[in-house]
C-alpha cells in the first residue's frame, strides 16, 4: 500500500470515528429531552479541532514509519487525489443546500450547525472512500 493510500485510509477512519463519538456525546447530553437545547458548541469545536489534530498526528507517524517513501507522489496519486477532491466538492455542494434551507426557514441553530457539520463529514468521507476505491480498483 502506497503512502498516499495509507493517508486516504487514515482520513476515512478519523472522518468516521470522530463524528460517531461526537454524536454519541450529544445524544447522551440530550438525555431524551429537547435536543435543540443541548450545549453542542464546545463539543463540536473539539470534534472539528480534534479531527484536524488527529489527521496531522497520524500523518506524521505514518510519514516516519514510511521513511523515504513518504515524500513520493506520482501522477497516479495526483489523479486519484483530484478525483477524490472533485467527488468531495460535489457532495459538499449538494448537502450544503440543507443548512441553507434550514437557515431560510429560520430553523434552530442546532439543526443548521449539525446539518452543516454532517455535510463536512460526508464530503470528507466520500472523498476518502473515492480515493481508496480508485487505489484498489483502478482509475
Amino acid at each position: 500500500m502506497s503512502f498516499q493510500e495509507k493517508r486516504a485510509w487514515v482520513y476515512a477512519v478519523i472522518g468516521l470515528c470522530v463524528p460517531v463519538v461526537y454524536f454519541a456525546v450529544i445524544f447522551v447530553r440530550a438525555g431524551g429531552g429537547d435536543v435543540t437545547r443541548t450545549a453542542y458548541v464546545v463539543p463540536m469545536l473539539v470534534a472539528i479541532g480534534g479531527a484536524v489534530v488527529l489527521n496531522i498526528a497520524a500523518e506524521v507517524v505514518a510519514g516516519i514509519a514510511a521513511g523515504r517513501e513518504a515524500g513520493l507522489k506520482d501522477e497516479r496519486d495526483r489523479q486519484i487525489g483530484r478525483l477524490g477532491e472533485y467527488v468531495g466538492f460535489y457532495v459538499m455542494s449538494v448537502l450544503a443546500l440543507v443548512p441553507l434551507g434550514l437557515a431560510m426557514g429560520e430553523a434552530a441553530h442546532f439543526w443548521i450547525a449539525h446539518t452543516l457539520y454532517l455535510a463536512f463529514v460526508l464530503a470528507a468521507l466520500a472523498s476518502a472512500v473515492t480515493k481508496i476505491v480508485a487505489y484498489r480498483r483502478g482509475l
Partner: protein
Amino acid sequence: MAKPTKVTNSIRALRFASGEMTQAELAERIGVTRQTLIAIEQGRYSPSLEMAFRIARVFKVPLEEVFHYPDPEE
C-alpha cells in the same frame, strides 16, 4: 475485482528479458511508486503518454512493443 483498462502491456515480460529487472528498480527509473508500477502492469492504470515513453526508453524498445491497444474490428 480490478477494473481493467483496454490498454494492455508487456512490461512484465520486458522486465524479465532485461536481466530480471525488479518492479522497484523500474519504478525508481521512471520516477513512480512501486504501487503505481504494479497498477500499470496489472492494467489497473493507464499511464500518461510521457510515462509510457519513459518506460519504453528504459527497455530501449518502441512504445508499441510495451503498450497495446486492441483494434475495434478485431
